[in-house]
C-alpha cells in the first residue's frame, strides 16, 4: 500500500513532466498541422541554458531566463525556418524539424561536450519533504508537481478565459476566417510556437537536475512525447494530459514491481521447461516487468492506432 502511494507520486511527476512537453506539441500540431520533431530538443536546450545560467546567477534565475531564451529561439525557428518550408507541404516540414533536432543535438555536443553536466537540485530544495513508511519523498519532486500544475492552470486560463486564448482557439479551427476578421494569424502561430517551445524549456529546466543533462536527453524523451500525443489524440489538450499521466504511471509501476513472467506463466498453467537454454521461449520465461516497462508506451500506441485511430480523446482521425 505504501509503495503504491510512493509510485503514484513518482508517476505523477513523470506524467506532469511529459504533459509540459506534450501540451506545447499538441497545441502546435493542432494549429499548424506540423509535428515539431525538435520539440524535445528545445527541452534539452532549456536544461543546458539553465545549467549555464545557474553557474553565474543560481538556479532561480535559470528557471526564469532559460525558458524565455528557448521561447525566443522557438519563435525564430518558426519565423525564419518553418514558414519558409511550409510552402513545400507538411512532409518537408516534418523533415525540417527532424533535421533541426539532429542539428541541435550536434550543437549541444559542440558547445558543452558529450558528458553529463553537473546540473544539480538547488540547495533550498535539497531536503526530504516527508516520508511514507520509510520511503522519503524529496522536496524537489513536490516542487516539480507544483510548477507543472501551476503551468497547466495558467495555460487553461489563458486558452479558455482570455481574449488571446479565444483568438488562438478560433485560429485553430478557422485560420482563414480569423485572418479575415483582422487578426494577424501568422503572428499568432509564431506566438504559439514560441510559448510551446518555452513550455518545453521550463520542463527542461526543472527536469535537468533529476533526469540528467546530457546530449541524448532529447531523443530519449522525444519519442515518448510523440507517443503521448498520439495516444491522447492529436490536437487534444485534455487527451495529452490523460495520456501523459497514464504513461507516467504505467512506466513507474512497471519499473517498481519485479513481477517475473515465469510466475504468471506458471499460474496460468504452463510448466517451465527443464532446460531453459534450449527452449525457444527462453526469453518469455526470463522476462520481468521492469524489462518490458520501457516498451509499454509504444505497445500501447500501436494498440491505440489499431483499435481507436483517433486516440483516447481526439476528435480527428489519426
Amino acid at each position: 500500500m505504501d509503495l503504491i502511494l510512493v509510485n503514484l507520486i513518482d508517476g505523477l511527476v513523470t506524467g506532469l513532466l511529459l504533459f509540459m512537453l506534450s501540451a506545447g506539441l499538441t497545441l502546435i500540431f493542432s494549429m499548424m498541422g506540423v509535428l515539431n520533431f525538435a520539440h524535445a530538443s528545445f527541452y534539452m536546450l532549456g536544461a543546458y541554458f539553465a545549467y549555464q545560467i545557474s553557474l553565474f546567477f543560481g538556479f532561480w534565475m535559470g528557471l526564469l531566463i532559460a525558458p524565455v531564451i528557448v521561447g525566443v529561439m522557438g519563435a525564430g525557428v518558426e519565423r525564419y525556418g518553418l514558414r519558409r518550408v511550409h510552402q513545400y507541404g507538411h512532409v518537408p516540414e516534418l523533415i525540417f524539424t527532424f533535421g533541426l533536432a539532429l542539428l541541435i543535438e550536434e550543437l549541444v555536443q559542440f558547445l558543452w561536450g558529450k558528458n553529463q553536466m553537473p546540473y544539480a537540485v538547488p540547495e533550498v530544495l535539497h531536503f526530504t519533504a516527508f516520508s511514507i513508511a520509510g520511503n522519503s519523498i524529496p522536496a524537489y519532486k513536490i516542487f516539480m508537481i507544483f510548477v507543472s500544475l501551476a503551468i497547466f492552470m495558467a495555460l487553461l486560463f489563458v486558452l479558455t478565459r482570455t481574449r488571446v486564448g479565444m483568438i488562438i482557439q478560433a485560429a485553430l479551427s478557422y485560420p482563414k476566417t480569423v485572418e479575415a476578421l483582422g487578426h494577424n494569424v501568422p503572428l499568432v502561430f509564431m506566438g504559439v510556437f514560441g510559448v510551446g517551445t518555452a513550455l518545453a524549456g521550463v520542463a527542461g529546466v526543472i527536469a535537468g537536475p533529476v533526469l540528467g543533462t546530457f546530449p541524448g536527453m532529447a531523443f530519449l524523451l522525444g519519442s515518448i512525447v510523440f507517443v503521448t500525443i498520439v495516444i491522447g489524440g492529436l490536437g487534444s489538450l485534455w487527451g495529452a494530459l490523460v495520456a501523459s499521466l497514464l504513461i507516467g504511471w504505467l512506466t513507474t509501476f512497471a519499473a517498481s514491481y519485479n513481477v517475473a513472467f515465469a510466475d504468471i506463466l506458471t499460474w496460468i498453467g504452463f510448466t517451465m521447461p527443464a532446460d531453459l537454454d534450449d527452449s525457444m521461449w527462453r526469453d518469455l520465461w526470463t522476462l520481468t516487468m521492469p524489462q518490458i516497462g520501457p516498451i509499454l508506451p509504444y505497445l500501447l500506441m500501436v494498440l491505440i492506432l489499431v483499435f481507436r485511430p483517433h486516440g483516447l480523446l481526439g476528435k480527428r482521425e489519426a
Partner: protein
Amino acid sequence: MTDQTQNAPRFGGMNTAAVAPWVIAAAFLLVMPFIFTSNSAITIMNQMSITIIFALSYNMLLGQGGMLSFGHAVYMGVGGFFCVHIMNMVEDGGLPLPLPLLPLFGGLFGLGLATIVGAFSTRKAGTVFAMISLGVGELIAACSVIVVAFFGGEEGVSGDRTYGLPVFGVEFLQQIEVYYLIAFWLMLSALLMYLFSRTPVGRMANAVRDNPERAEFLGYSARWVRFYSFCAAGFFAGIAGGLFAINYEILTEENLNLTQSGAILLITFLGGIGFFFGPILGAIVFTLLQTVLSLQTELWQLYLGALFVATVMYFPGGLAGLLMMHAPALRSGRAGRLVLPYIKTLGPALIGVLALAGLIEMTFHLRHASLGDHHMTLFWVDLDSHSLVPWLVFAAIMAAGFAVMRRNLPELLSAWHSANATGDRS
C-alpha cells in the same frame, strides 16, 4: 517532388537511351575493383552499394509514395538478423543454401514484416504514417534488448559467411568476392525497383502521393496502393539487410534504431527524392563524405546536420534536383554561359564556408582541448588556437569570401536567366 517521367520511353519502346545508363552502371561496377584495388576502397564500395539499395528502397516510400518513415531501418535490420540466423543454420548443417541466395530470404522476411506493419500503418500518409513508423521502429528496436534469443541482446548476433556451401568453388573468403556478390544484387534490385516505378502500381503510387482524393475518385484505393509500395520497400530493405549480414557478419541493435532510420532519411533527401537516381547519388556522396570528413574532423556530424537543414530549407530537390535544374540550359546548348559566373560566385563562397568551418573548429578546440593544449592543425597549417591572429585571419577570409560572393551573385542570376530563357535564340 517533380518526376521526369513524361519524357521516359514507354515499356514497349525500350530504346538505347533507356538501356544505356544500366549498361554503363554495370560496366562501372565491374571495373571499379580494378581501379581501386586496396582493401579499404573495396570495403567502402561494399558499404556504398548496400546503402544505395537501402536508400532506393526508402525512396520508394518517401519520393514515390509520399510516405515519410522514421523506422525504415527496422526492415533492413530484421531481414539482416534473419539472414545471420540462416547463416548459422547453414553452418550447423541443417540447411543446404548457397550464400548468394541469402539476400533473397532477407528480402522475404523484410516483406513479411512490412506486410504486418503496413496492414495498419498505411491507412494514412503524411504525419500519421510518420508517427506510426516511428512508434513501430522504436518498439522493435527496444524489443531487441528483450528478445535475446533472436536479437542477441546488447552484443547482437554474428555468423560466418564462409561456412556455407561454396558456389562454383567461391567460398566468399575475400572482400572482392563479396564485392561482386553485392554488386550483382545492387544491379538486380536497382533494376527491379526502377521497373516497379514504371508498373501501374508504381504510377498509382505517384498519383496517391500527389492527390489521394482524386486517386480515390478514379476508383483506386489509396490505402492499398500505399500498402503495395510499403511491402515492396520492405522487401528491398530486407535485401539490403541480407547483404549487410553477408558483408559485416554481425548485426546489433544499432542496425534497428532511430539513428539508422534518420541516417537513411538524410541520405535520401540529400541525394534528392524527386528522381530515381537521387538516392544513389546521395548514398555515394554521403559514404564518401563520411569516410573523408570523419577522418579530418570530429565535428563532421555537425556540418552534415547543417547541410541537411540547409538542403531542406533552400534546395528541397536535393542534389539530383540541383543537377536536373541545368537540364534545360544543357539541352539548349547555353550551359557554357553559366561556367564563368559559377566559378566567380561559388569559388569565393566555398572559401568563405571553409573559413567559417575553420572558426568553428577553433572554437571547438578552445572549449574542449585539454588544459594547456594550445596547438592545433587546421588546413595543413599549424596554429595556436589561443592567440588572436588566426581568428582574425579566418574571420577576414570568411568576410572577404562572402563579400565577393554577394557582389558576383547578380551576375550569376542574370547569366542563369539568359541561359534558361525560352524563345529568343540570341
